[in-house]
């Protein structure tokens, strides 16, 4: 631990980056799990990776390219088509596999090849720069302000889209806004945290929260707390055991989830 604390100065940006990604993705995971759009978030994350792959081979700035592709995917996936002939699930699934294939094809022609696929999948949190942190802080502040101001609209379209629409809420607009905030969170974290970690943060913290809490506010608090604790613990474990950071954080999240289950069982019993 002492060794880690001595080197803390070197790790301050990567740690800040992990915590920020954990904070925003864990918060949004509550909407994703409640709205049952886990598969949408997985597909959007993959499309975001394709954007990064394009940036890598063209030498452009990855974040705006990733943002563009993510928002495009969000706009397409948020359209509600009639499911009479083609289910939305199939449409999103196709988006996921096409984006995955496109990412592999793009980076296969890159000089670094397989290492870039590694980067896309697991991220490279150690490359975080102060500029990236400030940029993330700005976007995250916008996301939280949006969610603070429009909490009731977001919860209404998450719980009951048709009721929201018939009661006079512009449900399609607010649903798109919700998806855009999710897309923005994915885009800012994908380069440093990678596909695997972002997807995990967009699912598991909310599952923890929903298993333990019976009120929306508490679900948000638990999800965010679990996300941040996992990010910090996972980071330390990756340093201590010399493992890659993202899988360590995912493993920590899973371990916390496993501890939640017996806790919930005994809590319910008592």
């Amino acid at each position, binding site marked *: 631990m002492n060794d880690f604390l001595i080197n803390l100065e070197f790790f301050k940006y990567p740690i800040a980056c992990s915590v920020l990604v954990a904070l925003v993705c864990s918060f949004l995971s509550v909407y994703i799990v*409640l709205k049952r759009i886990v598969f949408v978030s997985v597909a959007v994350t993959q499309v975001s990776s394709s954007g990064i792959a394009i940036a890598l081979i063209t030498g452009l700035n990855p974040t705006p390219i990733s943002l563009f592709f993510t928002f495009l995917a969000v706009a397409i996936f948020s359209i509600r088509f*009639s499911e009479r002939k083609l289910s939305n699930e199939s449409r999103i699934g196709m988006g996921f596999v096409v984006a995955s294939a496109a990412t592999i094809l793009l980076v296969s022609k890159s000089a670094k090849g397989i290492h870039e696929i590694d980067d896309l999948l697991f991220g490279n949190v150690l490359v975080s720069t102060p500029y990236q942190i400030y940029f993330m802080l700005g976007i995250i502040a916008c996301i939280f302000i949006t969610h603070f101001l429009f909490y009731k609209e977001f*919860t209404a379209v998450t719980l*009951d889209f048709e009721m*929201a629409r*018939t009661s*006079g809420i512009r449900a399609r607009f607010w649903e798109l806004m919700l998806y855009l905030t999710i897309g923005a969170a994915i885009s800012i974290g994908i380069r440093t945290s990678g596909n695997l970690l972002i997807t995990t943060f967009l699912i598991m913290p909310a599952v923890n929260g929903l298993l333990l*809490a*019976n*009120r929306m506010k508490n679900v948000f608090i638990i999800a965010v707390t679990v996300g941040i604790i996992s990010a910090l613990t996972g980071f330390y474990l990756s340093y201590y055991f010399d493992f890659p950071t993202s899988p360590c954080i995912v493993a920590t999240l899973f371990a916390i989830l496993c501890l939640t289950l017996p806790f919930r069982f005994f809590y319910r019993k008592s």
Partner: protein
Amino acid sequence: MIKFSNVQLGYGRKPVLTALNFDIQRGDFFGIVGPNGAGKTTLLKAILGLLKPLQGKISFPENGKGQKKSIGYVPQHASIDEIFPITALDMVLMGRYAKMGIFKRPKSCDYELAEKMLKNVGMETLANRNYRELSGGQKQRTLIARAMVGEPNTLILDEPVEGMDIQGERAIMELIKTLHTEYALTVVLVSHDLNIVANYVKTLSIIHNNTLKLGPVDSMLNEETMARVYGTVVKIVNISGQKTIIPKLNE
């Protein structure tokens, strides 16, 4: 009042209901029945504004130009996702969101109104209970309160007694009848349960062969029409002032 002028409804280019020309009068208790797949849900979605007509116009003449239609919608309780950690009170409060306006948080008057509506539907003691922990009947009452808290002039219900026992069915229908009278509401109710509809609605509309026929319940509800619409012979009997529709077996 809800006015249908030469309306055609459907999905894509395929019409499901055609030549709809009728009015739902203010203060009416309007029932929509028909066999499975006839287009009951399609008609309901059109009234709610969730489905645009392929042709014609659905208007709310009394609302005036630019004024929003005032509809309270009660979906089937099974359509609400139980994963949501929300109390009955918060569920009802959600019905006020559109009235509060953008950037606004619920105020004490919104909470008072939500509590009053829960009391009106007999749910005041369960206000802080989680929605998912309520019984089917209690959930339906909560959703009725949520629709009412927006102070609508029209209440639209989709299969309000679906999956309930006889006692629950009666309690919910009596509640709707009371609200209809007390608040001078126009009630539009979709149900596949003819026995329920026959004893509560004033105007009965029957969807058959891609169109809709309507009239006072007593004139519409006859054995010949029912046999034609449902393709089975039925007997309509009056037991202690209550209409009962019984399908005849082996015919």
